[in-house]
């Protein structure tokens, strides 16, 4: 077998002039697949990042008694559980301690006579969430100084509606938790580009939002965890966190989508804590990610089909051109199976060559686009780019997928021609004039 393998390798190298067009095609196919998957991976990561900022983290801990509102009364115990999860190999980027106000028709922002509405007020601690908030595409200012309770961050859309700039004082008006109008003045410290619905949220300091809501200043509604690998470790991390919390607090485990919706209203004797993932919190995000996955799969299948057809045609031609060579090998005693295997090995080498050079080519293209292209913040650039630059992520899983598809297509495409080659009788093959 090893001998046949080495012979095939030698034959592959000697016939490279016949293979080079096909090799080039496979390199291009691999490069395109690499780029598409990497960009989609970047988009998935980007959307996940935006959603996690909006929803306090990739994992969020809630505490319910059945009165709808979540309060985390034992943050220290939750943080200890988070530390334990980290000890068990889950990478954690940051944590958040949020106050949340979510009454879409009850949040008004005013500046110099202009006004606009927001969907959500997010009460954050700048120091805790700085690593995540700094990834916002700021068009002016940035994340406020640690502990700046008078600061606020708004989206560019909101800033344009209010005609407000960094340094201006904005009035925020809400219906407090005591069901009455309350207002506060905040200074705009950061304006970020976010035209999607994640942009209809204003960031305030947690204590400021709590005062505005007329709840205790130190109250935490949601304690969030930002993961290093949110797309891959979300479920596992949620399970581990729920287990660790269960050792310290009354818990209700990991809340899936249905449980997450029902949990706030179920009456409980004591405050019980649950963990939910980002995907359980946002149906629309799941739908979007599913669409991206479907598009990637469709592209994969399309490329697989094209590659199989291309490889099949080219191999038929190669086998036809090498008929006398096949006849000689058969006359020297190589069996039918050996001929087939020999050509399949050559297809394997072709596929591997296409994958290696194609991935390299694709990565170079991605690097070049990332380095050379910088777009100003607008709808398209903030949706597909991060801070004006192309964001791409090539996971190991994607590389395996690309390699499987391209090598598989190469082998699959060669099967028909190699079987034909194997069926050739030595006499017929040797009598062939080419």
């Amino acid at each position, binding site marked *: 077998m090893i001998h046949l393998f080495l012979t095939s390798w030698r034959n592959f190298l000697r016939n490279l002039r016949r293979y080079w067009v096909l090799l080039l095609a496979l390199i291009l196919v691999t490069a395109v697949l690499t780029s598409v998957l990497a960009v989609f991976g970047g988009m998935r990561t980007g959307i996940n990042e935006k959603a996690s900022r909006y929803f306090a983290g990739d994992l969020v801990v809630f505490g319910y008694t059945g009165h709808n509102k979540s309060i985390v009364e034992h943050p220290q115990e939750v943080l200890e559980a988070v530390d334990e999860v980290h000890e068990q190999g889950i990478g954690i980027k940051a944590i958040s301690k949020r106050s949340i106000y979510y009454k879409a028709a009850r949040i008004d922002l*005013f500046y*110099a*006579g202009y006004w606009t509405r927001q969907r959500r007020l997010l009460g954050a601690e700048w120091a805790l969430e700085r690593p995540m908030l700094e990834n916002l595409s700021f068009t002016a200012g940035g994340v406020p100084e640690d502990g700046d309770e008078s600061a606020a961050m708004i989206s560019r859309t909101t800033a344009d509606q209010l005609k407000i700039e960094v340094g201006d004082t904005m009035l925020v*008006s809400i219906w407090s938790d*005591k069901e*009455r*109008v*309350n*207002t506060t003045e905040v200074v705009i410290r950061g304006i970020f580009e976010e035209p999607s619905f994640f942009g209809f949220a204003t960031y305030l300091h947690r204590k400021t939002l709590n005062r505005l809501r007329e709840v205790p200043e130190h109250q935490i509604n949601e304690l969030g965890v930002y993961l290093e690998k949110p797309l891959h470790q979300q479920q596992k991390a949620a399970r581990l966190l729920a287990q660790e919390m269960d050792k310290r607090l009354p818990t209700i485990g990991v809340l899936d989508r249905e449980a997450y919706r029902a949990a706030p209203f179920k009456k409980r004797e004591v405050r019980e804590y649950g963990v939910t993932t980002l995907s359980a919190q946002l149906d629309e995000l799941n739908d979007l990610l599913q669409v991206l996955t479907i598009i990637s799969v469709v592209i994969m299948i399309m490329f697989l089909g094209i590659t199989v057809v291309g490889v099949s045609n080219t191999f038929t031609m190669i086998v036809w051109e090498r008929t006398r060579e096949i006849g000689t090998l058969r006359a020297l005693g190589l069996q039918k199976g050996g001929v087939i295997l020999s050509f399949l090995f050559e297809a394997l080498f072709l596929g591997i060559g296409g994958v290696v050079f194609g991935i390299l080519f694709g990565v170079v293209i991605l690097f070049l686009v990332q380095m050379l292209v910088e777009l100003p913040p607008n709808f398209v650039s903030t949706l597909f780019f991060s801070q004006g630059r192309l964001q791409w992520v090539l996971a190991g899983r994607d590389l395996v997928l690309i390699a499987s598809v391209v090598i598989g297509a190469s082998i699959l495409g060669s099967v028909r021609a190699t079987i034909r080659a194997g069926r050739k009788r030595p006499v017929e093959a040797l009598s062939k004039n080419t």
Partner: protein
Amino acid sequence: MNEYKQLLRTMVLVLLVLGAAAPAAMGDNEFSREESRRILEQVDRLVTFGERDFSAEYTVSDVRPGQGTSRTKLTLFRRDRADTYTIIVMEPERDRGKGYLRIGDKLLLYDPVPRRFTSINASDRFQSTNMRNSDFNKSTLSEDYRITGHSQEELGVYTTDVYELEAITEDATFPKMKIWIDEDNLVRKSEDYSQSGRHMRTIAIPDYEKIEDRYVPVRMVIQDELRGRTIDGQFKHERTLIKVEKPSFQELPDMVFTRAYIERVSK
């Protein structure tokens, strides 16, 4: 000539009320709950129609500096004894047929396009103007507020008692208020404040019409203290002017205060 005089008087009063009227000095006066209630009940009584039904045509003009003026015409049917009202929007064309039905604490908005009622909040803006849906309710100052301060102030031709109020129920649209009461116990001006003390809205009521022993405010100006535009270097507030015509205490059929009635007239 009389009309001209009345218009002039109204304008002078509105200017005094909305423009330069300095906030009245906070009084140190303390009022017991009973005293508060007694004073505010007198105010409520004059503009509440107890056993009678009330109906009128309202013209609500919303003036947005630099953005134009919109006008809404509506008919209000109110029955204070049952704590209910029905509003049918007549103009503008795009909103014709919309209806509001208040029954107790519940307020429903009927949209004739999807033919559906949706529950809305009494404290929300009425048709995006500076009015709140609760402005159509009967006056319940004595139930919703207590007096926390008192002073006296000249307001145009009126000598008024200025009361600072603080909400005692969650039903109050604004947690703090100031009201200017004339010698006849009629509210001539009010200011609405947020919990943190931010001045949100000012209402001036220059004209009342006396019908039997009750008063109907027939001209009101509501100024939004937060919304407006700077034009030629001067900040101009958004204002809503309300004109009430054909006020009547004629008895109304019970049917008027039902969903079926709104659906029928909206066709």
